[in-house]
């Protein structure tokens, strides 16, 4: 497995203009911030480099403007982990689906859509997964307001 610096250089060469920043301080594992348009080629490249396990896709809300989508990658057998982040505008949070690279992402993306309202372009089946289908709003957003009643069930 390449070390982080070589990996970043090679990635920069393979997917031009993808990397915005590499952060190694105050984070475990280190993460790479990439442009949202480049997320699919970046993950394709990293998968080829040995990151064969996508552990999780998380969305992190950072009001007033940003939503982060974080991909945690693991190279099984290489003892190596890496996170890839991309930042989206909060009012139009949309990014390409990586379901074709890592099929497991399909469900994680549904969860991110359900709870955080991030849309994934090219996702074959972007429905709610944990909340009921007729739920309104995305509960993990910081400004989410709990509804008072759901089908006659009081929630307060």
């Amino acid at each position, binding site marked *: 497995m390449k070390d982080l610096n070589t990996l970043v250089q090679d990635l920069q060469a393979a997917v031009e203009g993808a990397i915005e920043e590499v952060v190694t301080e*105050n*984070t*475990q*594992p280190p993460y790479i911030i990439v442009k949202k348009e480049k997320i699919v080629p970046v993950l394709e490249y990293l998968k080829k480099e040995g990151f*064969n*396990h*996508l*552990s*999780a896709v*998380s969305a*992190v*809300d950072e009001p007033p403007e940003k939503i982060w989508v*974080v991909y*945690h990658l*693991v190279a*099984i*057998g290489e*003892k190596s*982990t890496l*996170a890839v982040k991309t930042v989206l505008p909060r009012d139009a949070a949309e990014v390409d689906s990586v379901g074709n690279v*890592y*099929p*497991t992402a*399909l*469900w*994680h993306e549904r*969860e991110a859509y359900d*709870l955080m309202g991030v849309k994934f372009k090219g996702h074959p089946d972007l429905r*709610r*997964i*944990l*909340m*009921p289908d007729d739920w309104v709003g995305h*509960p*993990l957003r910081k400004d989410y307001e709990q509804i008072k009643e759901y089908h006659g069930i009081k929630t307060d």
Partner: protein
Amino acid sequence: MLETQELVINMGPQHPSTHGVLRLLLHTDGEIIVEAQPHVGYLHRGIEKIAEKVNYHQFMPYTDRIDYLASMNCNHAYACAVERLMGIEVPERAQFIRVIMSELNRIASHLVFFGSFGMDVGAFTPFLYGLRERERTLDLFEAACGQRLTYNYMKIGGVRWDLPPGWTDKCREFCDYFEPKIQEYHDLLTYNYIFMKRLGNIGVLTPEDALAYGVTGPNLRASGVAYDIRKEEPYDVYDRLEFDIPVGTGEAGAVGDCFDRYMVRIKEMQQSVRIIRQCLDMMPEGDVQARVPRVLKIPPKEIYFRAENPRGELGFYIVANGKPSPERLKIRGASFSNIHVMEKILPGLMVADAVAVIASLDVILPECDR
């Protein structure tokens, strides 16, 4: 003129073999499954949202309820995640106690699997045998922390109380009692001709598919990938212990079939006993808690920590922001991906085999739905 048409069967959420509240939509052509669609979310309690409202210590009891058959392991993973985020050194004794508890809980969890798996494929007695032994592990937990299901025993920086006098002897007794029982399971169930024929070559999961769908834990190892976080990225004292990683061998058919998933878990229980024995021998005297402030204010930092739970990889992604509660806490449950892969395994199988496959994946819904 005879006509055939696709029939949609709704299996669950109240089906006895779906282990809780999993709902499967099965499109069937006669007895053959054409398409399977898992529906989850019936047990969603919003634990991730709660985490943003309570402080780091207060969140510990909620981790019990992520996977209630392996509460200790969930406690352990969360405690380790926050400790690493903070850079807290945990006293050695506490580390050993936590590993012992996690491995005992792994045995307890696999015993429930052993019992319910037997029952799902038509053997009732193993359930009684499995729970008989599990009862002993619960007695040990009760002696240590007063609880039998949701323990809340570990805390950030160690464990809540030291072990009561005589506990280690009782634990050794349990190991001596339990080890020969595994042979009994083999005699009773494992090498039963019907059982092997029922499971061999059924629901084969190739290593490529398993990795692509994010399957982890015993299910991945049954497919032949020797991936165990306790070895790859050891936490607490796992790096000082000797144990093997059992993988699927295709004993009753192909590698990665239902029988392999069963067998890997039985072998894991033996390894757990081995780990517990070593811990009991190596455990030093001393403190069981590090000094940790009552209210943790962690400066902006983040961590993604993974632990090897009985069902696979439990991940905690914690983003701290300097306040007493996290900015974001994401839980990656192993069952979430293990249920997703059903879409891939089930098509082509008989409906009756779906029951065996679901049982062999050993999913638990609160961990999936959180």
